[in-house]
């Protein structure tokens, strides 16, 4: 009886020993050499796996950072400058400070500004709707309002405003990962520099229709009147295909264009409220 038990124990021990040796040699022979810095860099990254950097997740981005000779062009939008500085320090590489960016919805076609010309009751998805027709308003460039950008945002930064029917970006939560930019079938969302004190100006319209057509479809449309181009002292605004665009690298936030815009298509964010002219004069006096 006891010998059976002993033989069993001996057999299993011997088997375990042999297998352990095989495993050890296999592990030695087929060992994958991995740069330990990859693990370190990955630990520094936020771990959102949003794909905003252009890599398939944080691990893949860490590998790219370690392999690359220069960190130029590699940027984690979620972590931003602080994280990239840490990554650069760990790898002993240099990285230039990048301006923080934020997603901007370039459409002001709210339910008030843009009358509906048809009723859409199909699948609640912008890309389905865009595949079926030009949209439920007379503007074929504007926001479809089905919220594909809301669904795709991994940070919960975009919500639909039920009053306007347009998406709203929470600039505190937005990391500029760019998922919404890719999801929008109308190419309305753009990543723009956040600007000093989060102040920025942008043209909130992408309609390439001629002025009259665009104005008829939406009261807040850019009509390509060139007033903003003429008034800009820094040549930051240009009009192409009947729609104005402000180059955020040239814009010095003087706000003259917003003042000149006849339709209010140029939106100012986080500026102090513009006081009426007479009040300003009184203050100076």
């Amino acid at each position, binding site marked *: 009886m006891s010998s059976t038990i002993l033989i069993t124990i001996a057999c299993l021990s011997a088997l375990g020993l042999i297998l352990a040796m095989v495993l050890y040699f296999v592990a030695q022979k087929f060992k994958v050499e991995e740069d330990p810095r990859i693990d370190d860099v990955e630990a520094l990254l936020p771990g959102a796996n949003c794909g905003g950097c252009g890599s398939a997740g944080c691990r893949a981005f860490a590998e790219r950072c370690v392999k690359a000779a220069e960190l130029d062009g590699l940027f984690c939008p979620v972590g931003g400058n602080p994280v990239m500085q840490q990554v650069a320090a760990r790898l002993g590489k240099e990285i230039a400070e990048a301006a923080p960016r934020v997603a901007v919805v370039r459409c002001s076609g709210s339910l008030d500004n843009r009358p509906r*010309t048809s009723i859409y009751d*199909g699948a609640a998805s912008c890309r389905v709707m865009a595949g079926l*027709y030009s949209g439920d308003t007379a503007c074929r460039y504007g926001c479809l309002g089905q919220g594909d950008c809301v669904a795709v945002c991994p940070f919960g930064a975009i919500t639909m405003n039920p009053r306007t029917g347009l998406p709203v970006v929470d600039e505190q939560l937005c990391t500029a990962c760019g998922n919404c930019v890719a999801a929008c079938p109308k190419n309305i969302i753009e990543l723009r520099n956040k600007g000093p004190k989060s102040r920025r100006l942008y043209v909130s319209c992408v309609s390439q229709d001629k002025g009259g057509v665009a104005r008829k479809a939406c009261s807040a449309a850019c009509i390509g009147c060139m007033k903003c181009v003429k008034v800009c002292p820094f040549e930051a605004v240009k009009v192409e295909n009947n729609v104005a665009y402000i180059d955020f690298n040239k814009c010095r936030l003087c706000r003259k264009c917003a003042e000149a815009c006849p339709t209010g298509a140029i939106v100012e964010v986080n500026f102090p409220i513009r006081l009426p002219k007479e009040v300003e004069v009184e203050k100076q006096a």
Partner: protein
Amino acid sequence: MKKTFALGGVHPHDHKISAGAAIEDFPVLSRVYISMAQHLGSPSEPVVAKGDRVKVGQLIGKPTGFMSACIHSSVSGTVASIEPVADLAGNKVNTIIIDVEGDEWEPSIDRSQTIVREITATKEEILKRIADCGIVGLGGASFPTHIKLTPPPGKKADYLLINGAECEPYLTSDHRIMLEMPEQILIGARLMMKALDVKKCFFGVEENKPDAIASLRRFSSEYPEIEVVSLKKKYPQGGEKQLIDALIGRRVPAMGLPIDAGAVVQNCGTALAVYEAVQKNKPLFEGIVTITGDCTEQQRNFRLRVGTPFNKMLDAVGGLPEQAVKLISGGPMMGKAVANIEAASVKSTSALLVLTEEQTKRKPQTQCIRCGKCVQVCPMGLEPYLLNKLAKVSRMDELEANRVQDCIECGCCLYTCPAQLPLLDNIRVGKGQVIRILRSRPKK
């Protein structure tokens, strides 16, 4: 046992309320809008300029690519302008706008009623006439007919199949031409048989049109190479792959074309257009259109010039009814909703359907319980519930593995889904993305 296709299919009520209305000529309007994108390929290029005088049947748009087709004026008059105009979906398409003056036809067009039975044209001449007359497939996809009749090298058609199924509810335009012009259609079929060099033609008609079958059979007895087959009523019998299965019992391989199964399928309307092009020298500038709906005052079939706006078409049936909420160009299963009522008809417009709120109201969506009804009805043997989920999360590799590219967009899954899920809407998006990936892939 009547023939039909083996896999899936649904049985919507056919609502053929305009079947008894004989084809009438639609009055020529004062202004027409002729789109340059009336076919599958790239838009045609206008060959006339503003202020030019044109006659009925004159070439006004020339093809710009392989899949492109000629476009002819449907009226006589002066070109008012050439500009982008919104189509029925609201997308801007280059359009020639013509102010109508009189009704002066090109003298080369034979307008007599006599039926030209003798086929004198050679194979090459037939194909050239079809291309010059801008004939496109009138079954819905607007595929240029001369390309379909020229099989790629190394492939040979055994059969020509003529689609007279008209499986879509409400539509009666094909029914009326089979009833009123059976001999012309059969001659058109024989012309295409000559162009394809095939010896046998099957003409499939669904059993709910016994008068059309009888009128075709009366003339087909003279042509033993054409066999008129009565088919069991089932949607989507008019789909190319379904008709091939129903008529000759062959399956088109996945991602294949009908020619891979040795068949070429043409619509009966296309056969009539081919007859008129080759025997009567008449380009494709008018078509038979059903204007119908349960709420319209009348339900009628018209011979309509290309470029007639939809709102003008409605005037002919007593105007837009008060309870109308939705207009559909084509049938209710595969037709397109008309978002822009001022848009104009094109070559392949087969019907204008007016629906009431009761007919179009969607029931609330619930969850998929994997009942498998969509799998049962899919005529391509796909799993729509799965494709729907994969398309929603953009899983391209799995969509491809599950053959999303074989979807024919017939809408059976969506029609049958007890949870009212927009299955086809999502699948169509996924299919488009997968096909784009497949096309960009280098060929082996």
